[in-house]
């Protein structure tokens, strides 16, 4: 009799208790837990769990989207928001990171401050099929390249280490962009904003170009390099979506 009770004790963990436990885990752990048992499956699908994983201001974010969509559960909404969603009249793209539930944003070129971008002599605005945004800024030629982006930190997930990236493409015909390193930095409310450098060139051409530069214009390269801060001279890496990205820096959002 005693033995029977011992055994039963474990099995009576009610679904509500399982939901509460799972709401303290991560989206990834909750999805994985569906496979534990039928009780875990219905607990792992419950709104109690996914309400906790959604950003606190998800209703506000969803209301900023032009697209109206229906969802039958909080889990369905969460998974929907893991795909990019255009907000703020198409000027920003929002997405939830699936495994952690953290928020990420992409600012469109229209949401960035690009020096002289309104002067058609230097920049023009175009619509590219491969862009998530309706317009991108295309550089013609310029003697001053300066791009800045701002985001309110309260829009971001708390207690999270964020990375800031510049997403770009470098056309085949481009020249001079990488004749010297560009200064890059991230500044935040509580981060010092250390500056480093990047070469706006394709990673696969980096080694060959560096060798050429050393051979033919070593002195000139050194002279140009001395005009900017010392940095690691990083190069963009390729993203899954066909664009390039450069990490500008990291910051911690409390």
């Amino acid at each position, binding site marked *: 009799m*005693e033995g029977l*009770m011992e055994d039963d*004790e*474990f*099995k*009576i*963990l*009610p679904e*509500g*208790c399982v939901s*509460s*436990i*799972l*709401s*303290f*885990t*991560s*989206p*990834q*752990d909750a*999805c*994985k*837990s*569906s*496979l*534990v*048992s*039928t*009780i*875990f*499956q219905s607990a792992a699908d419950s709104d109690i769990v996914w309400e906790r994983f959604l950003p606190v201001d998800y209703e506000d974010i969803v209301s900023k989207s032009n697209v109206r969509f229906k969802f039958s559960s909080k889990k369905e909404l969460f998974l929907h928001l893991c795909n990019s969603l255009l907000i703020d009249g198409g000027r920003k793209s929002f997405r939830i990171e*699936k*495994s952690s539930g953290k928020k990420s944003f992409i600012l469109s070129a229209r949401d960035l401050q690009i020096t002289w971008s309104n002067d058609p002599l230097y920049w023009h605005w175009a619509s590219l099929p491969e862009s998530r945004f309706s317009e991108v800024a295309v550089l013609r030629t310029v003697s001053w390249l300066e791009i800045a982006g701002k985001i309110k930190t309260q829009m971001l997930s708390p207690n999270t280490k964020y990375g800031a990236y510049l997403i770009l493409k470098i056309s085949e015909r481009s020249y001079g962009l990488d004749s010297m390193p560009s200064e890059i930095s991230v500044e935040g409310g509580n981060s010092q904003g250390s500056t480093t450098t990047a070469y706006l060139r394709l990673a696969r051409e980096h080694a060959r170009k560096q060798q050429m530069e050393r051979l033919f214009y070593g002195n000139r390269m050194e002279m140009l390099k001395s005009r900017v801060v010392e940095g690691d001279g990083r190069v963009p890496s390729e993203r899954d979506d066909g664009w390039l990205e450069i990490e500008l820096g990291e910051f911690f959002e409390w």
Partner: protein
Amino acid sequence: MSSSTDSPTLTTETTQLSPQPDTETAKPTKKITLKSSDNQIFEVEESVAMEFATVKSFFEDSPSTDTVPLPNVTAKPLSQVIEFCKEQIKFKANPDEAQKKKYNAEFVTEKSDKDLVDMIPVANYLEIKDLLDVLNQAVADRIENKSVEYVRSFFGIDNDFTAEEEAALRREHAWAYEGVDED
């Protein structure tokens, strides 16, 4: 071994301890009796029992009773829950967030997986919100990034899916099974 000089001091100490029973009667507190499903009796101070929302409402409905039966609760998790609530009463009298955090962390760290899992339905039934949060977080931390098989054995649960159901679920959440820790 042979130090005869030690024994006199020992005897004086024991005589000093003798008037102890008086201190009990000096501070009378109302006691409430809780009875677990395995018929064990727990005498707790009223303030501790009132931490249990379920017991509190039981008394509000029938104030004359002195023994509260807890048919869903066995002795071991109940004694641990009482231990936790006694400490919380002290923190209520003397709020010290840092100490409380430290105590709560130690309380769960020293418990076995089974102890934690057994306490959850008890804390849930007795509606002790603070303890539930502490327990849920502790269990969540222990199953974080673990395999499905690990979680099953952690909770002592059998797989009740058919092979087809399991395969379908694995397909649905394929991304979630990547990169789990070794058991």
